[in-house]
């Protein structure tokens, strides 16, 4: 394994991602978290051409899986794993597990790992989650009547508007564009066309955020399979072309919640990430940016160098709206739905589908390289966790 400095993990040789699957997201679903995770597991190994008894590692990312943990799911799936891991660090949880899982495979601790991520929310579950997200939320935000992150990202969006000069129409263009992609994704929960007029006329949730700036809460699960590159299923899995992990970087709690939230950990790692792969933003064929709010898509894209400071508006209209940048092609969480920790793998699964040439109507032609990010875990005023991953397919 080789490292490229402190800011970026490279050298994932010997590891292949085989399958990425999504159990359809549903509003007010009736399937338990455990059931969703089990369905995702079974769909993933079927796609990978892997038998359950070949799986020797299991990672779980979820908010609502408790009181069960990874080993409980392993028992229900009759697995005998050598490697298990749980992570509940929100929007980066699935990628956190992936990073550890890849190293486990390289080090020989496991040869075939399935990472599942998902959540089922009853109405009271979600309210409980957002009001008791952590002790800071419970003790310092909930008493204000501000248990939801919407109010925090509303004020963050206001700061971004002041700093960037963007208007509501610009954020709306991003939401409308993602809805257009969702219209080509049979699994997206919200697929009906959305116009900018619809966006601007929508009810305010927490000004300047309207309904279409806030992700709709759904149930669902995602899963990926990663294996040793010499694993027998790499060759027999014709329906699941292997995908390589080229580089990965994570940086959390960069400013102790004492800044404006308009800069994420990705800004600190972008240079080393791109250097590690010898590419830049212009080389990415598919881009999945964690989209809990439109503003955070633009913040992360800026951090990663997709556009220069002051150029956000041009980028939105010339690159995103025109689809020159294939961004959040599933519709993103804004339209496909926000299934809790499942969304920590949602963008990765979408990127893999494109790299494997299985994206159907929305397939990006000759997609070879993809970028995926995770973001989340609001402490007091904005998210603390950031992760980015660069993938390579075979370009078919």
């Amino acid at each position: 394994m080789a490292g490229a400095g402190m800011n970026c993990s490279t050298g994932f040789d010997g590891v292949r991602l085989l399958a990425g699957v999504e159990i359809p997201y549903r509003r007010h679903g009736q399937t338990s978290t455990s059931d969703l995770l089990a369905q995702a597991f079974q769909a993933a190994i079927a796609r990978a051409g892997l038998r359950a008894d070949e799986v020797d590692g299991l990672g779980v990312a979820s908010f609502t899986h408790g009181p069960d943990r990874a080993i409980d799911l392993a028992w229900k799936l009759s697995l005998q794993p050598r490697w298990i891991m749980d992570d509940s660090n929100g929007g980066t949880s699935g990628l956190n597990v992936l990073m550890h899982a890849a190293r486990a495979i390289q080090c020989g601790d496991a040869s075939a790992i399935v990472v599942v991520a998902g959540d089922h929310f009853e109405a009271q579950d979600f309210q409980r989650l957002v009001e008791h997200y952590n002790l800071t939320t419970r003790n310092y935000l909930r008493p204000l009547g501000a248990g939801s992150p919407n109010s925090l990202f509303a004020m963050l969006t206001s700061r971004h508007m002041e700093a960037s000069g963007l208007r509501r129409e610009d954020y709306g263009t991003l939401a409308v564009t993602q809805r257009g992609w969702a219209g080509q994704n049979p699994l997206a929960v919200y697929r009906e066309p959305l116009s900018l007029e619809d966006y601007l006329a929508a009810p305010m949730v927490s000004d300047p955020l309207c309904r279409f700036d806030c992700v709709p809460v759904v149930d669902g699960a995602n899963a990926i399979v990663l294996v040793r590159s010499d694993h027998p299923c790499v060759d027999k899995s014709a329906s699941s072309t292997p995908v390589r992990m080229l580089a990965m970087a994570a940086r959390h709690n960069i400013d102790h919640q004492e800044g404006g939230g308009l800069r994420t950990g990705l800004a600190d790692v972008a240079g080393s990430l791109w250097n590690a792969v010898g590419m830049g933003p212009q080389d990415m064929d598919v881009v999945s940016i964690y989209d809990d709010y439109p503003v955070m898509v633009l913040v992360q894209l800026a951090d990663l160098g997709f556009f220069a400071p002051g150029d956000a508006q041009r980028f939105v209209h010339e690159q995103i709206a025109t689809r020159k940048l294939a961004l959040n092609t599933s519709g993103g969480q804004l339209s496909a739905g926000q299934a809790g920790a499942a969304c920590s793998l949602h963008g990765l699964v979408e990127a893999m589908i494109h790299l494997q040439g299985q994206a159907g109507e929305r397939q990006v032609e000759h997609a070879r390289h993809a970028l995926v990010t995770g973001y989340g875990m609001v402490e007091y005023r904005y998210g603390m966790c950031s992760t980015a991953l660069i993938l390579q397919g075979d370009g078919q």
Partner: protein
Amino acid sequence: MSTPKRSACGMQMFTVDQCTACGHCAYPPRYLCPRCHGAQWKTRRVVRGILQQYTETRGRDAEGAPRTVPLATLRTDAGPLVVARLAGPAVKGASYTLTLQDQALIATPDSP
């Protein structure tokens, strides 16, 4: 990490933690100072903050009735940025007095 002090009139004064090693003020409290990693804190009273951003969050109360919660981000005179519920009009750049009521940080306009 310190706990808020109650004033003579029953309303809690708002305080933040100040690192005894470097003087950095932090809110909400934490174990180690984000500037110097010092572990000793003293309590510093905070009286005022300047409003930076605000929002009105629409939601429902416990009985399901619509309600609007006015919230703001303020830069305190001790340094930390805080989130508070507004008890009066929102005016960007204006000064507000900060107090604690039932664990909630309340920002009251200094000028009506």
